[in-house]
């Protein structure tokens, strides 16, 4: 029976022209922790499109919201407590928390789609090279962003 006559189950990945760009979601998640959102956010978005996961719209929306969320944490802390020197490390913990929480949720969503992608014979590229390059470029990118806005500097954490 041709594949187009098979019933499509709702959680199955849609065909995507970017299939070759699929990576195990562990890599963008690790990039979130080690290289920064400047790399992880676009990576999660590309992976969502490449996987064709049924939750891709939700994934893209959350990934795009991560820098906004981090800035909101900083602004909220400034408004509520003021950003004195002693409090800055705690605000940074809160910013990292927001970033990693969103990253973990994204990882969980994409991991389900990736499992099915593998089940249907797909594979994932090794993301270690991108991660290493991202990790090495981190400082340069942050310095570049720092000239634009301190908030974006935080966003690049």
């Amino acid at each position, binding site marked *: 029976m041709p594949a187009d006559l098979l*019933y499509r189950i709702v*959680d199955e990945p849609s065909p995507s022209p970017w299939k070759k760009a699929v990576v195990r979601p562990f890599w963008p998640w690790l990039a979130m922790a080690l290289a920064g959102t400047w790399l992880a956010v676009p990576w999660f978005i590309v992976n969502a499109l490449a996987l064709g996961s049924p939750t891709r719209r939700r994934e893209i929306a959350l990934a795009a919201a991560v820098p906004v969320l981090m800035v909101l944490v900083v602004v909220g802390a400034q408004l509520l407590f003021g950003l004195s020197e002693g409090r800055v490390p*705690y605000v940074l913990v809160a910013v990292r928390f927001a970033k990693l929480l969103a990253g973990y949720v994204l990882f969980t969503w994409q991991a389900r789609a990736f499992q099915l992608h593998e089940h249907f014979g797909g594979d994932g590229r090794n993301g270690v090279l991108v991660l290493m390059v991202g990790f090495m470029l981190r400082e340069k990118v942050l310095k570049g962003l720092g000239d634009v806005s301190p908030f974006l500097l935080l966003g690049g954490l």
Partner: protein
Amino acid sequence: MSEELDDGSGLNREEAVGGPPPWERLAAQAMGVGNWNGAIHHLRRALGADPERAMAHALLSLCLIHTNRLFAATHEARRALELEPELPEGHLALGLALRGQGKLKEARRALEQTLALEPEHTGAMLGLAALHRQAGDRTGERQMLERALQVAPDDESVHVALGTWHLVGGELVEARRYAESARTLSPDVPEVLVLLGELALREGKVNEARDFAIWALQHDAMDPGALALLASIQARQSVLLGLWWRYSVWMQARGDRGQIAVLMGAWLVVQLATQVLTDLGRTGASGALSTVWLVVAIYSWVGPALFQAALEKELKRVRLRDDF
């Protein structure tokens, strides 16, 4: 000899007359031997030919539950009920899918609806018993299992569930009695073999437990109970792997949201504690805490790989039976 159908199902016209359509019948056969992915494939074909068939959606939902695709299972069960609101299998599938997602109230409603439509539905009773167990209500679970036993005294699943109930309560003699009665009814069913293995493991007979797990896997290579039993046996043989296994089981029971809450909560506590210790000038303690966190993080990364390698070594002993 009857002519074979030209739809690729392998069934002949005589077999295809009356009863469920051919693909659905093949799916039921695959489900009978625990070949859930095979059954899903047949049901996709059945629904490709007739997307309005409620029973095929319900069966697909049950197969998806067994492969842990709970979101899709819920979707298929709801679709079955849209097409046929009084289909007991649709309500059963919905109840089991929702139970898997921790939506216990909705699951209870769906399973009770199954019983309202089919008062002697053993599957719904077992599902309700499992709901009682999840809610920590051992008395309610026992009552539901006794009710199932009255309705279906020859159903090995009920005997297994009662045996497991006694095993969890530490009543090994009673557990053994139900395990043996289940074995008399169906000696080769994986869930019976898994209960016998769990009993052997509880009694310290590790090799016997391993043999039961492998025997069960020979009948159903994907049986989660048999894999869990094999993993428990591995976990017993190494303290570190045992710790990881217990942690992993504990986390799995929490679902995705619970896992995120636990891990991110732990991360936050460690980060704040590290910062507070630094502010108090206790840099040694702060550094030690960071190191412990790093070691735990690395082990949680390496642990699953070590565990999988140990499990794969055991699984090499498994030889699937011919009709799997």
